[in-house]
């Protein structure tokens, strides 16, 4: 864990269980087979650059950084 770690959360209303997060960061994300949404394991902390990559690749835009400026728009520039 480093100072540059951030915590992430998943908006389960928006998540479509695309599974890209589990592919990129399997230690932090898991698609829950019962609820069919992504869930965050443990405290959900991961390096900022990994978090940004996961947020970027998440198809539904369901992932954001906790305490981030509201939420990081997933739709890019």
């Amino acid at each position, binding site marked *: 864990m480093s100072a540059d770690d951030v915590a992430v959360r998943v908006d389960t209303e928006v998540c*479509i*269980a*695309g*599974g*890209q997060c*589990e*592919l990129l960061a399997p230690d932090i994300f*898991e*698609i829950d*087979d019962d609820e*069919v*949404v992504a869930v965050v394991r443990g405290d959900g902390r991961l390096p900022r650059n990994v978090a940004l990559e996961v947020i970027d*690749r*998440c*198809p*539904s*835009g369901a992932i954001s950084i906790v305490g981030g400026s509201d939420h990081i728009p*997933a*739709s*890019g*520039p």
Partner: protein
Amino acid sequence: MHADQTTARPDAPNVTDDALYLDGIPHDRFAEMRAAPGLLWHPYRDGGFWAVARHAEVRQVSRSPEVFSSAIGHTNLWDLEADALEARRGLIDTDAPDHTRIRRLVASGFTPKNIKTWGTTVRELTAELLDEAVAVGTSDWVDSLAAPLPIRVILALLGVPVDDADHLVALSNHLVEGTSEQQTLAPDAFGNTTELRLLPFNSPASHALFEYGEALAARKRLEPADDIVTTLVQAEADGERLSGAEFRNLFHLLVFAGNETTRTALTHGAMALADHPEQWQRVLDGEVSVEQATEEILRWATPVLHMRRTTAVDTELAGTRIGAGEKVVVWYASANRDETVFEDPYRFDVGRDDNPHFAFGGGGPHFCLGAFLARLEIQVVLEEMRARGLRLRRVGDPVRVPSNFVHGVLSLDLEVVS
């Protein structure tokens, strides 16, 4: 410059003529579209659409479903009358909340964990088909591996008996014809009495798939099993979450998408590996992982070339004003060769580090449901080829499907060398 040339926006080069695709994707025309400022208008039949060719804007459209709707109008280029649109409405042609409800229901079968449990089945099938192809030496790769593998896997997931596989493959093949102007089936084929305009792909084969799906659902209600059709009919019984039409259309989509798209990826992948033996060598040598090579095969293949959206509100994209109710078509075929995202985009490079391809769509709620299944199948084929030290050699040219919608290949003769 002439005054009216500075004010009139030039039309996009034609990329919808099906015949163009007999020689492959018209990449030069898409490059021209990407280089143009703003968006280009593409005339089509009585109207036209805004052609979205750049990676960034394909992404933006795909991820803004509240602006670029899948439920208004149709997700194919042409328009449908209101009753036809309703009759065909399924997972692809819906927006939230209907889409979310149907998607969640079926997505449980396609989660990474669930797909992993199919690894052994995929590997056994692959081994069987590859060993046969090696024994034969030269064969049509589509027939010997690319078609049978994905269809057998998706049918196993759905809970369709093995003996019915050939029938369903034939039906799925007819559907592709329905996306081009070349229908070969009579309107009353398979006992169809429904007007073709009410059927997906305008194809009587859709009627046959509906009938098959309904009979299978009836059987699964009596004899539930660990498969996706059982999940769908049980959910239906639990809380009436899936209507009869929704089930029919979903079954139809799963058979078609599970058959056609991965077949296309496996065929273009094999062709690329045969044409670029030095790239396959990198996989054989372990320099590049099969996972990494799979992503490049997906980018290279782009099995689905485009999807259409329709604007729900007035909006602006790439500096172009778009009114509500206009057609916007996102071209994955173009985004996957965007030179601002992919270095040397026309080069097949299995070792690409960053490969944010849109083979599964541009993101958003309609992101390919079967992405992990497709990846698993391609990865296992590469692994089994590597384990046997196999190489592929081109024997002839591919026979392509004349379609602006799917990047299909009808046949590709290859020699499988051990």
